[in-house]
């Protein structure tokens, strides 16, 4: 019994570690919501070893634990992932221990996308997002097949360890995780977080603007108004009543460390999220 717990604990650590590393690597994704899902290798090994019920619970735990680590707990991406994980858990319950890991991977990948899209529809109440489901399904199936193949190989490699007296599998998994963590430490890119612009007037934060969608905003300040224009990932002062027009001439800003300021209106616009590439830009 204790061995079962130890194995599951280690596999959970491996799964969480893999999910975290995948989030750090920021692999290019053809569509938002599509990803490789490397961590599912751990879930599939649990399926082969401990059956559908354990694997279902394991998948959910792993999602929550990884969200804690990447800091996305309770953010929109967390709920989307939870939807996907719930759908996959349901499927794993149905499949049970007997199925091949490749089949489980493919079906699991598809189920995840269905669950994720369902969560998206629930969150946004926008049926239009359904058009993303077919391409996401195709990508999910492909990623699921890849992780299924990986899991088959990994499970085959660790199988002697489960049965032998020496706990080779655990050590194998532990060293794999340690190596992966070392790799992540070496690479350690900036945490990918949503970009937003923070507008400060006379030293006080006035509003935060999500830079996800294009729009224009009118900002009333003491002495006049400023019109801010947002495009995905960037913002600028489109027009301003101020005398010197320095803010308008500054143009677009798209990263931290390069603020737009308007001294006459005591207004400062900075971008938060992502690492600054420069400490400042001299003007």
């Amino acid at each position: 019994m204790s061995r079962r717990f130890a194995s599951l604990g280690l596999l959970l650590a491996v799964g969480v570690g893999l999910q975290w590393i995948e989030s750090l690597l920021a692999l290019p994704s053809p569509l938002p919501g599509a990803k490789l899902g490397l961590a599912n290798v751990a879930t599939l090994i649990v399926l082969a070893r401990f059956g559908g019920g354990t694997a279902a619970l394991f998948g959910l735990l792993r999602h929550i634990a990884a969200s804690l680590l990447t800091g996305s707990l309770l953010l929109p991406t967390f709920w989307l992932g939870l939807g996907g994980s719930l759908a996959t858990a349901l499927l794993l319950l149905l499949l049970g221990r007997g199925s091949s890991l490749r089949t489980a991977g493919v079906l699991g990948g598809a189920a995840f996308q269905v669950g994720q899209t369902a969560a998206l529809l629930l969150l946004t109440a926008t049926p239009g997002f359904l058009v993303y489901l077919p391409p996401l399904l195709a990508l999910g199936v492909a990623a699921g097949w890849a992780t299924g193949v990986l899991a088959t190989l990994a499970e085959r490699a660790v199988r002697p360890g489960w049965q032998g007296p020496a706990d080779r599998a655990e050590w194998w998994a532990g060293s794999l995780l340690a190596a992966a963590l070392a790799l992540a430490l070496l690479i350690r890119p900036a945490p990918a977080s949503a970009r937003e612009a923070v507008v400060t007037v006379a030293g006080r934060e006035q509003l935060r603007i999500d830079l996800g969608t294009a729009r224009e905003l009118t900002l009333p300040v003491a002495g006049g108004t400023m019109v801010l224009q947002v495009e995905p990932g960037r913002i600028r002062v489109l027009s301003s009543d101020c005398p010197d027009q320095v803010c308008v001439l500054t143009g677009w800003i798209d990263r931290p460390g390069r603020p737009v300021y308007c001294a006459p209106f005591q207004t400062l616009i900075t971008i938060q999220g992502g690492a600054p590439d420069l400490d400042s830009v001299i003007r």
Partner: protein
Amino acid sequence: MKARLRRWAPSMGGVLVAALTLLMAGWDRSAPPLEETGFLLDAYVRVVAVDGDRPSGVRAALASLGAVERLLNRYDPLSDPARISRAAGEWVPVEPLTLRALLLARSWEARTGGAFDAALGGVIDLYRFGDGGQVPSPAELAGALALSGAVAWELDEAGSRARVARAGTVLDLGGLHKGLAVDQAAAALRAHGVTRGLVDAGGNMLALGLRADGSPWRIGIQHPRRPDRVLAVIPLSDQAIATSGDYQQFFEQGGKRYHHVLDPRTGEPASGVLSVTVLAPTAVEADLLSTALFVLGPERGMELVSRSPGVEALWVTGALELVATPGLRDRLEVRE
């Protein structure tokens, strides 16, 4: 014993890995550098402190930026230059820092051959920058130029006082007061034990020591025609930097750009250069020289730089070519 160890080893391994994971998650989250921003009369300022007594240091630095601004920005009617200009013909006692600024101005008037002029306020005012802009007539220009230049004002160092000879001369320390403010702010940081930090006043900066990650501060130089682009990057440590550009304050009339960097000899916007960036041991030198080297252009400017120890410069010419002094060429990371 051995069997027991074997049984517990995986669990202990698991705990170890979990602990390691948590440790890594908390890694690199030591106190980030303290950063504060504020506004002066016409500029945005930012102070960053990495070490030392950071809250007091940053507060003192922002306070001294404001104090120098109030003392030396002539657009503040209570400032020393405004008081001197108003009291034409009379000696006006000045603060020690004003005296220092005026001494620097006096010495650089000569060293730049008149490319730096602390009495050009009357000419600048004719253009009405920041108020729509207006091109002065040749007669207006000639009149204002006659009231400018080194002969237009006097300094009594021993008596710590200054005066302009005639009414209409407008003392303007805009070519150096921001640099001096940055130097004072850096001194305030140092006085609070800050050895690593950044004083950023938009066009004038001073980098103390290294960043939190142990590398030099990285300062981008704005593209003179595409404000959202960076033309080059300069790594900076224990040095000041300043830029003068024809894009900071200007208006256009009849297809011509009238910008605020005026040639004191003609009273017209200096031509041939889009921007000049200067590195110097102090921010006041960098500030002052960025204006003078803009007016002089790369050829004559190179010669002035070679006579100024610790100074490097980068010109962006009208054809968007970069001309750097020899000491800067290897340090410059050109972006586009």
